[in-house]
């Protein structure tokens, strides 16, 4: 057999496994070997679980041999962002404060992956507690973009995006609080979807901002993301914000890829000025492809989006400052005793531990959130941000009266160089300008590759947004665009990425 198992899509692997022409152990072994060869250079993983992945692969093979009813993805390996609790596997959230922590329980989505017999390859790198757009805020060093190892793979889920883009995993789990699935997908030429808020359980997802966080799939094709979405989605009684409704028909939508008569709304505020010319050019072409496929284009205006970034950077730090109060050095994680203090109090130990255990960005946001919530400033900051959030949700409601889906470039630029924005927090925050509104309103979004920007030859992303619980529309549009662009390119975009075997030693 000539198929390179590391380059096969998850759907292709599912077919091979189902036909019995390859075993899950062979697939898992091939991916682990790929990681051994390239991850020294890419640094997608914080932890690789070779033994556990192979044992799960064998179990998948046995279940299939025994004729058990299985999900199509049974036996297809997956990488999991290090923000999801995994029983028996380290879970650090990219932070020193959780170095070496091994959760005694599985997140619901991890349990679903295990029950569906998807071998867990390992835990992927991320900005500390998912705060960042580049993975440079990971306490364990940044991940790198397989298209150019001197550039960022996006963030916070740059470990997952780079693992998928460098053929170390066909599938990965990400989490998206302001764009952390979609922006990494855009800058690595991969696919990522943020489901409707509540569409995937948050139980066992270490909370950054509880009203914004949502886990979702990362992959190289739209259909693969839909298949993974189907496995992890659905109601969970352990998450009080979980939506009690069936998973939208995402796989069917991805397979049909039908956009005939669909009204595509271009958001005026999320195009043009501020977007790199090559990113904008690929976006304009993508829209034309959808028109050729039978979609109608309308222009919509969402004037409140101008304030979305500001509202987000008040709401997120406020929620984060509260959520991260749990890292108190008492029940799990790091405990640091202050120097030169005889018999320190619990409070002093907590303060010393949090200074030693948290990185700069986490400290900045906790302090900003503490300020925004403090008496005397609450109304001016957090209160105003919550009102802006309402305006943004109202803008979406109006836009979805005129259009079935909304589209924009996913990120304003292609991947920037490591270090370029590290000293300027506001410049880093601007990466999320097009992705943040969806999180504030709780609606689903997907990023699909739109091509390479002319000025730098790096990938750009096309974002699709849909009303809450209409996630299937994302996959219909994404798959229709993917089919046309892949045909125009003569093959998948990632075929043009550098072969990393040359840079590894």
């Amino acid at each position, binding site marked *: 057999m000539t198929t390179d198992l590391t380059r096969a899509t998850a759907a292709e692997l599912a077919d091979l496994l189902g036909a019995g022409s390859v075993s899950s152990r062979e697939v898992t072994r091939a991916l682990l070997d790929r990681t051994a060869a390239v991850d020294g250079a890419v640094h997608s993983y914080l932890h690789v679980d070779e033994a556990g992945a192979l044992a799960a692969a064998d179990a998948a093979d046995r279940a299939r041999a025994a004729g058990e009813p299985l999900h199509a993805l049974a036996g297809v390996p997956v990488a999991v962002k290090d923000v999801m609790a995994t029983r028996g596997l380290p879970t650090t959230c990219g932070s020193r404060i959780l170095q070496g*922590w*091994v959760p*005694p*329980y599985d997140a619901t989505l991890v349990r679903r992956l295990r029950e569906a017999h998807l071998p867990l390859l390992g835990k992927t790198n991320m900005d500390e507690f998912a705060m960042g757009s580049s993975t440079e805020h990971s306490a364990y060093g940044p991940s790198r973009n397989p298209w150019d190892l001197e550039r960022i793979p996006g963030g916070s889920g740059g470990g997952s995006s780079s693992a998928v883009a460098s053929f170390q995993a066909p599938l990965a789990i990400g989490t998206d609080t302001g764009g952390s699935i979609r922006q990494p997908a855009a800058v690595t030429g991969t696919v990522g979807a943020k489901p409707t*808020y*509540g569409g995937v359980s948050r139980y066992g997802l270490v909370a950054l901002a509880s*009203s914004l966080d949502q886990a979702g799939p990362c992959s190289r094709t739209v259909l693969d993301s839909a298949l993974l979405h189907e496995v992890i989605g659905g109601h969970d009684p352990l998450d*009080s*914000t979980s*939506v009690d409704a069936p998973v939208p028909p995402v796989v069917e939508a991805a397979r049909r890829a039908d956009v005939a008569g669909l009204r595509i709304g271009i958001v005026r505020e999320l195009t043009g000025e501020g977007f790199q010319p090559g990113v904008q050019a690929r976006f304009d072409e993508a829209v034309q492809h959808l028109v050729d496929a039978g979609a109608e284009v309308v222009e919509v205006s969402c004037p409140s989006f101008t*304030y979305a*970034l*500001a*509202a987000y950077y*008040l709401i997120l730090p406020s929620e984060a*400052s509260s959520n991260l109060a749990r890292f*108190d050095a*008492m*029940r*799990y*994680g*790091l*405990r640091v*005793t*202050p120097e030169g203090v005889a*018999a*320190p*109090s*619990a*409070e002093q*130990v907590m*303060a*010393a531990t*949090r*200074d030693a255990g*948290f990185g700069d960005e986490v*400290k*900045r946001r*906790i302090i*900003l959130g*503490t*300020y925004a919530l*403090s008496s005397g400033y609450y109304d*001016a*900051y957090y*209160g*105003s941000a*919550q*009102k*802006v*959030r*309402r*305006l943004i*949700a109202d803008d979406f409601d109006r836009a979805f009266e005129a259009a079935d889906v909304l589209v924009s470039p996913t990120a304003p630029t292609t991947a920037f160089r490591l270090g370029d924005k590290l000293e300027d*927090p*506001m410049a880093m925050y601007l990466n999320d300008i097009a992705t943040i509104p969806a999180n504030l*309103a*709780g*609606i689903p979004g997907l990023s699909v590759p739109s091509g390479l920007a002319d000025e730098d030859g790096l990938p750009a992303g096309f974002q699709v947004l849909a009303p*809450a619980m209409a996630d299937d529309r994302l996959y219909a549009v994404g798959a229709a665009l993917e089919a046309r662009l892949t045909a125009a390119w003569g093959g998948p975009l990632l075929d043009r990425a550098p072969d990393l075997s040359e840079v590894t030693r």
Partner: protein
Amino acid sequence: MADLTRDDVAHLAGLARIDLSDAELDRMVGELGVILEAVATVQQAPITDVEPMSHPMPIVNVTRPDVVRDCLTPQEALAGAPESEQQRFSVPRILDEE
């Protein structure tokens, strides 16, 4: 908008239980000033009489039947503890000495 002073940041760090060093305080005053100026633009949005939105969906309380179910063993719950004693989390003193 009130400008944040170094003392303000030190006070906030205390509330947030982060023992910032002098160098960290110096750096953070400037950085937070820039961020605050940017986020303060929410006050210029047309928000008069707008109902605040704290969550993307209506929140309802969720209950479950009051029946015993599987939970962590004491060993599992204590497995990540920095220190434990007699099946309990062991913590530094929580009261002042006087």
